[in-house]
C-alpha cells in the first residue's frame, strides 16, 4: 500500500533524524554540555524536547507536504467534504498531552535539584552594579570587583580584537571544583543577571532582594559568561569569568588572598603618613577614571547630556573638595552615581578625585591625598 511518494517522505524523515544530531553537536550552534551534573541534565532535557519537536514537525509537515503535492487542484484533485471528527480531535488533544507529561517528569526533577542550594561548602555573594560584578567570599573576608578588561581600542576597532574579546575581566571569580558553591545574588542598582552557560546557572540579581543559586563544577578550567538582563548603557560590557581550580589550589589561593589583604592594609597605613606627588596621582587617577568612571562620565569628561552629567567645570569639580570627596565616596542616592568608598582604595580615590579636578583643561592645581579621603571617611 505504500506509494512511491510515501517512500520518499519516509526517506526524508529518516535522513533528517540522522543529520540533525550531527549538525546539532557542533557547539557553535547548540547549547554547551557544560561541566556540571546539572548542566548535563539540562543539555539532555534540551536535546529531548528538541527531538520531540523534530518528530512532531516531521509528522505534521510530512502530512501537510503530502496534501500540498497530491491534493492539488491542478492535479485534478476533487475536494472531499468532511469537516468534523470528534475521534480525531480527541486523539490529537490527548496524544500531545501525554507527550508533555512524559516531558514534564524529568524537567521537574532537574528543576527541584537546581533550586536546592542547601548544604553548600562555600558561599559567595554576587552583587551586580552598573556595570561590574562584586564577589564576596562569606566568612573569609575576601572580596573584589571584577570589570571588563577588553581595551577600549579593540571595541572601537582601532586594535585587532583578541580571542576573548568582551569575555575577559581584570579579576576572575575563583572557585573550587568538586565542592558545592552557593551564590547569593543581589544588586546595588538595576536588575542584572548572572549567567555562566557551562554551569547552567542564570539568576537575576535584584536590588534589595537576594536570590540563591549553586553549582558544583567537575572540571577545572576557565568559564565565561555575560550579564543577561538589560541593565543600561553598558549591559553588553559586563562579562563574567570564573576560574575553577582543584580544591587544594583553591585553599592556597585563599591564603594568598588573605595575605594580600594584610599587605594592602599595611600599605594603606603607610600612605596615610606620606604624600603622593601630583604626577603620581594624575597617572593613577587617569587609570582609575578610565576603568571606573568613564563608562558614565565619558573618557573626555563631557558626560552624556541628560543622562550622566559632564564633569568639566561642573558644580562639584569646581566646588569645595569636601563635596567632591563626599559624592565619590558615598554616591548619590536615587541616581546612577554609586558609592565608591568600598570599591576603590584610598589611593585610588585620592587619585581619581585629583584627576577629575585637573584633567580636561581644568588645571585647578587641587591635590587630594589618601589621608584627606581617610579623614573625610572618619569624619562621617
Amino acid at each position, binding site marked *: 500500500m505504500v506509494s512511491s511518494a510515501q517512500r520518499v517522505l519516509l526517506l526524508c524523515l529518516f535522513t533528517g533524524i540522522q543529520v540533525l544530531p550531527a549538525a546539532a553537536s557542533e557547539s557553535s550552534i547548540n547549547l554547551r554540555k557544560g561541566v556540571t551534573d546539572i548542566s548535563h541534565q539540562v543539555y539532555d532535557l534540551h536535546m529531548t524536547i528538541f527531538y520531540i519537536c523534530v518528530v512532531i*514537525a516531521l509528522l505534521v509537515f510530512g502530512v501537510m507536504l503530502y496534501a500540498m503535492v497530491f491534493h492539488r*487542484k491542478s492535479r485534478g484533485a476533487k475536494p472531499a467534504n468532511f469537516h468534523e471528527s470528534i475521534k480525531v480531535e480527541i486523539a490529537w488533544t490527548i496524544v500531545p498531552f501525554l507527550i508533555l507529561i512524559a516531558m514534564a517528569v524529568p524537567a521537574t526533577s532537574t528543576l527541584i535539584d537546581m533550586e536546592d542550594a542547601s548544604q553548600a561548602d562555600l558561599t559567595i555573594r554576587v552583587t551586580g552594579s552598573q556595570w561590574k560584578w562584586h564577589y564576596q567570599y562569606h566568612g573569609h573576608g575576601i572580596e573584589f570587583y571584577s570589570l571588563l578588561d577588553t581595551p577600549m581600542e579593540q571595541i572601537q576597532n582601532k586594535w585587532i580584537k583578541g580571542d576573548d574579546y568582551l569575555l575577559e575581566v581584570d579579576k576572575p571569580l575563583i572557585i573550587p571544583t568538586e565542592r558545592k558553591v552557593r551564590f547569593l545574588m543581589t544588586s546595588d542598582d538595576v536588575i542584572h543577571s548572572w549567567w555562566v552557560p557551562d554551569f547552567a546557572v542564570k539568576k537575576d540579581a535584584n536590588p534589595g532582594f537576594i536570590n540563591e543559586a549553586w553549582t558544583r563544577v567537575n572540571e577545572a578550567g576557565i568559564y565565561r559568561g555575560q550579564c543577561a538582563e*538589560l541593565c543600561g548603557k*553598558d*549591559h553588553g560590557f559586563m562579562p563574567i569569568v570564573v576560574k575553577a581550580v582543584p580544591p587544594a589550589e583553591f585553599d592556597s589561593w585563599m591564603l594568598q588572598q588573605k595575605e594580600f589583604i594584610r599587605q594592602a592594609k599595611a600599605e594603606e597605613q603607610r600612605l596615610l603618613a606620606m604624600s603622593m606627588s601630583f604626577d603620581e596621582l594624575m597617572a593613577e587617577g587617569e587609570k582609575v577614571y578610565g576603568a571606573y568612571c568613564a563608562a558614565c562620565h565619558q573618557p573626555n569628561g563631557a558626560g552624556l547630556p541628560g543622562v550622566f552629567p559632564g564633569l568639566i567645570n561642573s558644580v562639584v569639580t569646581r566646588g569645595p573638595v569636601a563635596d567632591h570627596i563626599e559624592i565619590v565616596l558615598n554616591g548619590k542616592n536615587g541616581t546612577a552615581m554609586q558609592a565608591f568608598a568600598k570599591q576603590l582604595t584610598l589611593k585610588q580615590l585620592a587619585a581619581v578625585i585629583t584627576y577629575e579636578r585637573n584633567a580636561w583643561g581644568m588645571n585647578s592645581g587641587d591635590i587630594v591625598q589618601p589621608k584627606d579621603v581617610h579623614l573625610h571617611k572618619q569624619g562621617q
Partner: protein
Amino acid sequence: MNSVASTTTQDTDDHGPAKGIKRWLFTTNHKDIGTLYLWFAFIMFLTGGAMAMVIRAELFQPGLQIVEPHFFNQMTTVHGLIMVFGAVMPAFTGLANWMIPIMIGAPDMALPRMNNLSFWILPFAFTILLASLFVEGGGPAFGWTFYAPLSTTYSGDSTALFVFSVHIMGISSIMGAINVIVTICNMRAPGMTWMKMPLFVWTWLITAFLLIAVMPVLAGAVTMVLTDKYFGTSFFDAAGGGDPVMFQHIFWFFGHPEVYIMILPAFGIISTIVPTFSRKPLFGYSSMVYATASIALLSFIVWAHHMFTTGMPVYAELFFMYCTMLISVPTGVKVFNWVATMWRGAISYEVPMMFSVAFIVLFTFGGFSGLMLAITPVDFQYHDTYFVVAHFHYVLVTGAIFSLIAATYYWLPKWTGVMYDLVLAKWHFWCSLISVNLLFFPMHFIGLAGMPRRIPDYSIQFAGWNQLISIGGFAFGLSQLIFLVLVIKACRKRGAVVNHQVWDGAKGLEWQLPSPAPYHTFEKPPKIE
C-alpha cells in the same frame, strides 16, 4: 445572493464619502477607518523596520561602528514598542473595522464616532514616542518591557513622554475593543448565530475581551512607573518597601495575553484563507472556537514563564511550567485542524495561500521554540538570549505579520476592485520567505551558543552568523518595499477589474458584495441561509 449585491449598490448613490482631507478626519465609516488604520500600521511597520535596520547594521560586525550603546538601546526599545503597538495591533484593528461589519452583515461598527476617535489619537501617541528620541538624554532605552528600576530611578527624562504615549495607545486599544464587542454582540444579521460566525469574527471577539482585560493593567504599570520616577512612590523600589520583581509580574500579566492579542486574529485569518484555497470547509470549526477560547483563558495563568530567572519559589516555577506546556496543546490543535482542512482538498496556490502555508510552517517553528522555552530548567539557558529573539520573531513576523500580509492579498481586490500585480506579489512572497529565514533562523544558533539579547557588541565567535542575519535583515526590509509599491498600485486601480467572487472557493458575506465594496453596505441586513 446577487439580489443582495444589487440592492446595496443602489443605496450607495445617495451619499458617498466627503471630499478631500475632511473625509479622513471626520469619517465615521468603518471602511474609511479601516483603511486609515491599515495605512497607519504600514507606515509604523516601515518606521520600526528602519530602526531594526540600524540595529542590524550595528550588529553586522563585532565592535562599535555606527551607533553608541545608549542609542542602540533606544533603537531596540522603540523598535519593539512601534512594532507591537504601532504595527501589529493597529493593523488587526484595521482589518476588524473593514471586515467584521461585512462578515456579520452589519451596516457599520456599533459606535462610529468612538471609532474615529480611537484611530485619530494614535498618530499623537506615536508622534510623542518618536519625538522623545530627540529629548536631551534620548528616548526610552529600557527595552519595550521597561523593567523597573531601569525605567524609574535610572531612566532619562523622556520617560514621562513614554508613559503618556503608552496611555494613549492603551485608550485607543480599549475603545477599539469595546467597539468590536458591541458590534459583534448586537449587530449580527438575523440568522447569523454564534456558531455560524466566521472564525475571524470569533477570534477577534475573544481578542477584544483580552484587550479589555489587560490594557488597564498596562496602564497601571506605566502609571506606577511614572509616580515612582517623579512623585516619590516606591512601588518597585525595595528601599521604600516596594519590589522590582512585582513590576515584572504586573507587566507580564499584561504581556502574555498581549502576545495572544497579536496572534488570535491571525488564527482567524488563516482559518479563513486555508479553506478557500483548499475548496473544502474548515476542519473542526467548533473545536477551533473552543481552542481559541481556552488559549485565551490559559493565557492569564502563564505570565511568569517570562520570569523564571527572577528567583520564584520552586512551586511557582513548576506551576507556570505546567501551565505553559498545557497552552501548547490547543495551539497544536489549531495547526492540526489547518492541515486536516488541506487534506483531500483541491488546493491551489494563489498568493494569500502561499503566505498562509508559510505561516502554518513558520509559526509552528515559533511554537516549537516556545515549547522548548516552557521547560523551566532549560529556559534558564535560553532566557534573554537570541534564542528568545528568534522565538518571538517567528511568532510575530512569520506569524502575525505574515497573516496580515496574507489577509491583505486576500481582501485587497475586494477593497480596491482590481487584482493587484501578481508578479510583484510573487516576488514579495519569495523574497520575504527566504530573507526572513536568513534573518531569524540563525538567531536560534547564536542564542544557544550563548549570545545575550539587547547587546550592541558581541564576542567574535558570533561574528559569522550575525553577518548572515544582518544580510537577511536588510533583504527582508527591502522586500517590504515591493509590497508598498504593490499596494499603492492597487489603490490607484492599476490592474484587472475583478468581479464580486474574487476567489472561486471563497465563502462569506463579503463575497456577495460587488468589488470594490460600496461605501455603505448591508444597510438592509442580508439573509443568512
